[in-house]
């Protein structure tokens, strides 16, 4: 399923030369409100090149951001520019943009190839050119074998990939993917992630949204975190993560013999504190949650502890976001 990216094909062989000095995406003090509810408030952002992940809970404003970029919505304040042009007023920049919408509904009566080639013609390709290009991008997302089947028969992963193919058909400089991994099986995920990474390697600007960090992490290091319409974090994943490392974490373990387990756990370097809230529970404090979690199961199995639950009470989104917004600890 993983495509061979070294195959012959225009997109791979040609180096992209940016044709304009304007950044691909430029948002200045952008706010979008529905009545008194702000879906996005005061976002300033410039993106050019590379893969950027947009993280946020449901309702954080990811889709609103994308709809603003795609000219579906009108900004309440501020300005949105794609390649220096306001997309609400002028659809011209879309010649250089590919968009993968979140919506599940597709034209089930078309084949994948028809879908891609028909919409390729909206980029100004002739019928014949469109067919050739459709073949190319469908191959790129490794859908060649089912290209002539009806979309209605596709699995969810195939649908996502055919949407990506439709977005790539004009060889865009900027690719916006709204939840491309949602509902896909692991194999499709891997393929789609590889496609996105490859696009980034080819020098395209890629904006991909997700509410799952792990997925984004496998694609890119540059992330944007949106929360309640505000820009919460922006930049390299590592640096954000380092800041997060300074806060202590708690791990709560419910076991029949907390003291015995504590003896085994205290040997781990990263543990700097242990407490017993009650007779059945053990609370571990650490700066390095990953290390604990990688070693804890082994300790439990080796020493034959009877563990009921392991919990990270601080690791809910609220405490993370609380930390990020206040800049302080918990």
């Amino acid at each position, binding site marked *: 399923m993983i495509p061979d990216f070294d195959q012959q094909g225009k997109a791979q062989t040609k180096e992209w030369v940016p*044709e304009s000095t304007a950044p691909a995406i430029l948002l200045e003090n952008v706010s979008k409100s529905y009545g008194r509810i702000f879906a996005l408030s005061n976002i300033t952002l410039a993106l050019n090149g590379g893969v950027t992940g947009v993280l946020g809970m449901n309702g954080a404003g990811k889709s609103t951001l994308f709809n603003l970029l795609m000219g579906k919505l009108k900004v309440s304040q501020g300005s949105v520019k794609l390649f220096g042009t306001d997309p609400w007023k002028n*659809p011209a920049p879309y010649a250089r943009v590919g968009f993968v919408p979140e919506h599940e509904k597709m034209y089930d*009566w078309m084949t994948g190839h028809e879908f891609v080639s028909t919409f390729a013609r909206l980029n100004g390709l002739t019928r014949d050119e469109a067919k050739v290009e459709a073949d190319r991008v469908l191959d790129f997302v490794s859908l060649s074998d089912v290209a002539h089947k009806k979309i209605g028969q596709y699995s969810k992963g195939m649908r996502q990939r055919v949407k990506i193919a439709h977005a790539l058909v004009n060889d865009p400089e900027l690719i916006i993917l709204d939840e491309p991994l949602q509902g896909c099986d692991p194999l499709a995920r891997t393929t789609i992630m590889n496609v996105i990474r490859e696009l980034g390697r080819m020098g395209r600007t890629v904006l991909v949204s997700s509410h799952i960090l792990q997925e984004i992490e496998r694609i890119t290091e540059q992330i944007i975190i949106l929360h309640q319409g505000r820009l919460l974090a922006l930049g390299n994943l590592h640096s954000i993560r380092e800041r997060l490392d300074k806060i202590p974490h708690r791990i709560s373990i419910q076991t029949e013999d907390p003291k015995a387990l504590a003896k085994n756990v205290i040997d781990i370097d990263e543990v700097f504190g242990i407490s017993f809230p009650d007779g059945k529970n053990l609370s571990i404090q650490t700066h390095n949650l990953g290390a604990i979690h990688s070693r804890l199961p082994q300790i439990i199995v080796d020493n034959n502890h009877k563990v009921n639950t392991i919990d990270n009470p601080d690791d809910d989104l609220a405490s993370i976001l609380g930390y990020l917004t206040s800049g302080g600890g918990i």
Partner: protein
Amino acid sequence: MATKPDSIYRSLDRKASAIIEFTLRQYRTKKSTWVVLGVGFTALSLIFLIYIDVMASEFESIDNDGDSTDFDNDGYPRGQELRLGTDPWDGDSHPGLFDPPIEPDPKSMYINEDGFDWDVTARVGLQSTGFDDDGDCQDANKTDSQKDTNDNGVACDIVIEYYRLSDGQLYATIDADDGVDEDPDEDAYSREAIHLAFVLSIGKLGFVLLLGIFLPLFLATGLIRDEMNSGTMHFMLAKPIARTEVFLYRTLGYLGIVWPYVIALGILGAIVSGFAGSGDSFFRFADLGVWLAIIFATMMATLVYGMLFNALGVLWKYGIILAIPFAAWELGMALLSMGAPDSTLLRFSIIGWALMIVDAAAMMVWPSLDVFILMGNWGGDGGANWDFEKSLEGAGPLGFFSSKPGLGLSAFPAVIVSSLVLLLQAAIFWFVGGALFKGKEIQ
């Protein structure tokens, strides 16, 4: 890569053909499209079948002047007795008493024995026409003044005077000498009149009104709205294409299925009425002009309504609620145009202009239509007086369904003017719909 950013508007035709083709294929996959087209076809076919049946049946011959009746029961019809100078009311006075006796004529000789011989045009002034086929006016026993009861100095003729009233319409008075064109052939007249009325009514109500309104109502209202609701509009709007273009091309795609359908049904109607219609010729070629106008008017109507209903769909999720009262308004305007083709209100409708095209074409193709209606209204009562209750069958419906183009225009300019107005309306609705679409936020 084939496209470069500077080539966005280079290939309008490619985008256009792609969306049109896409729209057509989308219609093809929807069951409702076929149901709508099938029901339309069935309904019109039903009317065609009834028409064929009516045309194949005989129209009852009526003795309009009553001279086939034997009032005095002497075996001789009244007409024969009058001709031969006996008393039709006296059973003891009949041609059988002549020397040598004359056999009674069959009654059928006195039915439909004096048909129309009119050669007039609808213009202001006096015209003399008519011919006494059965010779009851030219009877040698009559004096000159008896032969010229309308006192115009010509024996056995009909005087038709057209005059124009202040409303701009032509009106006519008919003054015939006794016994001229007093017993026309019902079958010939009614067959022709009902044929003409059929073409006009099916063209105006069946095609321009029903097809013209209901096809767009079913097919065009959701052109943009359905895509917006289902979220698939995102695919189209993510491409470098202006929304007004999408609006236009979607409508063109809708026309791509509606226009061939209208043309096919129009050709079917032309063939049916051409072969089954009245007349001696094998096929009524002259009517093709009217059918052409009907097809054209219906196409224009579906264009304008398509743009309008599409725009209403963009405007509001419940665009259909706006479209339905509008359709009712148009229905009322259609009926108004039958009765008062010069009404100013009609100028604020779409259908008024579309029907004007049909009326103008009818005026061009059948120049003597007015005279023909006049004939039928007059001719049913033995030439005696005006009695619409007794007018010949078919004259009433023909008078109802035919009307003048209005605006005081002659036929050809009327076609041009109404076509231009309809195109302008379509352009306005496109502009409005495109602007609405452009200002619409899509979730």
